[in-house]
């Protein structure tokens, strides 16, 4: 949950209805807008946030807001929130909003420059407020803020609100006159302000000397005055209260809280103390933690009586206590006994656990000092945490535990080991596993067995990540012998790992078996998350094996599970991201591009939010594929580039896939040089031993060879790939290879042979409706399918396919002469740019035309060609020889 954008963090706090207006400070704030930075630095309770919300409500300037918390000490997370916040004003390009997900935050400027440029290019202007900046300790984030300040465009202003001065080179900005500061001395209430506050806002009727005494005693500290006012509201003898308070030497907040609480009814006192452990409160959570059922009413009442409760959203669902008030309450609570506190944290943690807000659950357990429970959460939800990639957050939380606590608890070490695997640090993970193994002897038998099993599972997972599938399977098989029969989830997970290894190795029917076994166990264990993951993978395997209908059923079944689950828990489930991406595969193959696009957008969004590498890559690739199919080559290309920039490690397979897919786009847009360059640098050779997992690379290679007219090389390679498809049962590959070989034969002039092969492909594809596998092979394939239909081969399916090609297939001999009205030179020029995937805007710039003119050219082109959109226009123009024909 923590990696999703919590919109409550972006809400500008509402100005309180009984605000003390502070024109003297507003004036200074307004004067500071032309400088780079406004700093509001003062301890808690000086009205920093309140002052800002008044500024915002009275200012004509738009503001973006970000309330920081401890969990934002992660550069990627921090930047993603900054972007989400700025997005409300500047409406960034999609590509920017994903830029931040980089796993190499070292190169700060690369991350920041596009962001700054977008702001600077934008017509809007805004101030960005970073509230509670003192919670940031991460040096990288300080550097990011310095970078922003150094490069801040004139249409942006930064406001930092903090309890301590942030290390962002304040002296430098101050010296250059770029800093506007509001500090404690400015924020203290003057006697006039205190008068207004106590007598008007809080409805007291104090004399000037009394107000003066209170202001002196509290030194204008607003929280102190507020606490005093709450006590005074209920106090029978106000003058006595004032004089007693003035004469007391205790720490004033301590004294005042005692007073304030004393006048609250018992149940409110208890409620305040018990809920003080929560950073964010909502009524159901408070009910659960305090074992009451009237929390909603209490929260409303507290808000009404100014008891330091801050609403976080319009609907009054979520609140938080004023920091200082919460701190003071927690100290009181601790006084009441360690045990009750542990119990409260435990309840709060399990409330979040039930809603799968696991990192918050872990955080609360850590605060409760309940390392046991953290370990149990890891034990119970390890798989969910692993599969939802909440590991990065967890890594950071675990880092807050003392080393001795972690090293004393094998579950926590195991959690760390998973975290290391997530960061691709296998050696460290293995060291950690060794460490657990060495402590096993002191544990009871049951725990020992459970741990042993999980160590093996992780070892197997590591082997699989290193592509050593034989080892991965061996370890997992051994583990299965030791895992108790009733340890269902882990058995299921182990079977899933074996199934995965088989899938990557190309033993698809074995993979299918293991996935089915895994699914049986996960369903028996009622482990929804795991079942959904297994079904998603089944969707993939079935599609690959030529069972598109079954793939669809598995996907829909999983989707229903997710929906029921989400209804029950009221939360968005992470795993649905991967599922939707796998479903988009199916829709794509069926040529239902709208649906495919819809699923890819949601899926990629979720994947990016939890930073899951595999799903994110899948999302970008699918998005690229779909955009190609829609004729948006530029956008298709951008998706791949974006992915590469997000995960710039060239060694990883997905990065290389992205390069291969780029080469494919080059081929389709007639950029043979680009495709050649890929081939030369790819390191692929005709005589390579081809692993199943690398099928895709060689498939692209055959297309380059084909385009270069190296037909016999292409054919040899295609025959080898076809054999792999046949032997592994990857029917989808088989269909595709048959089609490609048919095109080679056709180009060689052997049309009969070509149609024979195509007929084989059609027979495999027709019952399950594989369409894109053909359509993606372009215009020559359309011609070939047309010929096949003329010969009466599977005519119904052929017609279905022909409908799917971008333009109605017409006989070969047409030329531009057949057009009622030929295209003008200018129109051909525009069309050439369209074919290259340029946007209208870009064409306008390149040809020095107005956007309007380009659009009108485009309309004429469509009408002359008798087509509806750019894709059809380009395809038809190629067919007519207006544009060079490419394969």
């Amino acid at each position, binding site marked *: 949950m923590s990696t999703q954008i919590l919109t409550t963090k972006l809400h500008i706090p509402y100005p309180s209805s009984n605000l003390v207006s502070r024109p003297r400070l507003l004036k200074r704030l307004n004067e500071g807008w032309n400088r780079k930075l406004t700093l509001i630095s003062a*301890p*808690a*309770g000086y009205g920093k946030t309140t002052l800002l919300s008044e500024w915002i409500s009275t200012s004509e300037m738009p503001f973006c807001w970000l309330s920081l918390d401890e969990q934002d000490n992660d550069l990627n997370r921090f930047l993603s929130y900054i972007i989400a916040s700025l997005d409300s004003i500047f409406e960034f390009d999609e590509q920017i909003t994903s830029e931040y997900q980089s796993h190499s935050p070292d190169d700060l400027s690369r991350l920041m420059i596009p962001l700054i440029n977008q702001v600077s290019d934008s017509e809007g202007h805004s101030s960005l407020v970073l509230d509670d900046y*003192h919670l940031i300790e991460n040096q990288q984030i300080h550097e990011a803020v310095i970078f922003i300040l150094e490069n801040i465009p004139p249409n942006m202003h930064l406001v930092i609100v903090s*309890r*301590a001065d942030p290390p962002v080179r304040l002296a430098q900005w101050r010296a250059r006159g770029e800093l506007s500061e509001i500090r404690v001395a400015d924020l203290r209430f003057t006697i006039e302000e205190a008068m207004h506050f106590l007598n008007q806002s809080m409805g007291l009727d104090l004399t000037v000397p009394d107000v003066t005494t209170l202001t002196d005693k509290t030194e204008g*500290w607003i*929280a*102190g005055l507020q606490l005093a006012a709450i006590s005074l509201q209920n106090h029978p003898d106000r003058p006595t209260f004032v004089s007693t308070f003035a004469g007391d*030497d*205790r*720490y*004033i*907040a*301590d004294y005042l809280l005692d007073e304030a609480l004393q006048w609250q009814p018992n149940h409110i006192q208890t409620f305040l103390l018990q809920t003080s452990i929560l950073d964010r409160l909502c009524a159901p959570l408070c009910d659960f933690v305090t074992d009451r059922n009237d929390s909603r009413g209490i929260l409303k009442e507290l808000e009404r009586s100014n008891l330091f409760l801050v609403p976080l959203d319009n609907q009054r669902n979520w609140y938080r206590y004023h*920091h*200082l008030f919460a*701190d*003071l309450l927690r*100290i*009181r609570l*601790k*006084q009441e006994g360690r045990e009750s506190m542990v119990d409260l944290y435990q309840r709060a943690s399990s409330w979040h656990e039930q809603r799968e807000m696991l990192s918050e659950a872990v955080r609360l357990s850590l605060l409760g000092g309940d390392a046991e429970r953290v370990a149990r959460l890891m034990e119970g939800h390890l798989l969910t945490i692993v599969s939802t990639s909440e590991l990065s957050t967890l890594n950071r939380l675990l880092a807050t535990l003392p080393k001795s606590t972690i090293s004393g608890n094998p579950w926590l070490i195991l959690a760390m080991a998973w975290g290391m695997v997530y960061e691709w640090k296998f050696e460290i993970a293995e060291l950690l596993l060794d460490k657990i193994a060495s402590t096993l002897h002191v544990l009871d038998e049951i725990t020992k067995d459970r741990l042993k099993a999980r160590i093996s599972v992780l070892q197997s997972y590591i082997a699989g990540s290193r592509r050593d599938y034989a080892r991965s399977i061996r370890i997992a098989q051994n583990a299965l012998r030791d895992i108790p029969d009733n340890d269902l989830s882990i058995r299921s997970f182990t079977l899933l790992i074996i199934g995965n290894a088989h899938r990557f190795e190309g033993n698809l029917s074995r993979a299918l078996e293991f996935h089915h076994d895994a699914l049986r166990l996960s369903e028996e264990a009622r482990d929804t998350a795991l079942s959904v993951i297994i079904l998603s993978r089944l969707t993939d395997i079935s599609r690959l094996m030529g069972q598109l209908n079954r793939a669809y059923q598995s996907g829909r079944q999983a989707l229903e599970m997710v929906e029921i689950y989400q209804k029950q828990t009221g939360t968005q489930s992470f795993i649905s991201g991967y599922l939707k991406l796998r479903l988009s595969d199916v829709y794509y193959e069926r040529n239902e591009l709208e649906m495919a696009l819809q699923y890819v957008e949601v899926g990629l969004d979720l994947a990016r939010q939890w930073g899951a590498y595999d799903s994110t890559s899948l999302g970008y690739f699918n998005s690229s594929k779909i955009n190609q199919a829609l004729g948006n080559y530029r956008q298709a290309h951008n998706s791949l580039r974006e992915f590469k920039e997000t995960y710039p490690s060239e060694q990883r397979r997905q990065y290389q896939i992205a390069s291969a897919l780029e080469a494919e786009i080059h081929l389709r847009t007639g950029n043979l040089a680009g495709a050649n360059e890929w081939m030369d640098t790819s390191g692929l050779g005709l005589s390579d031993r081809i692993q199943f997992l690398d099928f895709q690379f060689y498939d692209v290679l055959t297309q380059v060879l084909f385009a270069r007219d190296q037909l016999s090389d292409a054919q040899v390679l295609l025959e080898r790939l076809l054999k792999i498809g046949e032997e592994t049962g990857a029917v989808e590959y088989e269909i595709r290879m048959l089609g490609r070989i048919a095109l080679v034969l056709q180009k060689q002039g052997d049309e009969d042979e070509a149609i024979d092969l195509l007929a084989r492909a059609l027979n495999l594809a027709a019952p399950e409706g594989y369409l894109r596998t053909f359509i993606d092979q372009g215009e020559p394939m359309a011609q070939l399918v047309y010929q096949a239909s003329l010969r009466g081969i599977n005519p119904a399916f052929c017609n279905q396919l022909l409908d799917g090609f971008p333009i109605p297939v017409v006989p070969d001999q047409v030329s531009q002469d057949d057009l009622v009205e030929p295209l003008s030179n200018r129109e051909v020029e525009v069309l050439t740019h369209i074919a290259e995937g340029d946007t209208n805007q870009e064409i306008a710039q390149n040809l020095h035309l107005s956007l309007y003119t380009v659009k009108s050219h485009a309309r004429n082109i469509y009408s002359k060609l008798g087509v509806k959109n750019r894709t059809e226009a380009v395809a038809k123009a190629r067919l007519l020889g207006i544009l060079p024909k490419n394969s």
Partner: protein
Amino acid sequence: MDSETSNKTDMSFPATYQITIKGLLSEHWTDWFNGTLVSSLNDPTGKPHTILTCQVRDQAELHGILNRLNNLNMPLLEVTYISDKGEDHV
């Protein structure tokens, strides 16, 4: 300050610090910063103050405590390094 330790340049940890703040704190704060606490009305300036004596593992922990005092708006009067043999004092 302890004359023996005051000359030291390389401090070692855990160490004991005395933190003096303005105002009087009641006993229950002891637990909060994990140390001992003595409140007194009589200091050289005649103002009420509280001395917190606490053992910290490193500078970072010390800064953590100072931050928390800041968060509670407790004015700081003095921070003194006492000894690196923290355990003897607590």
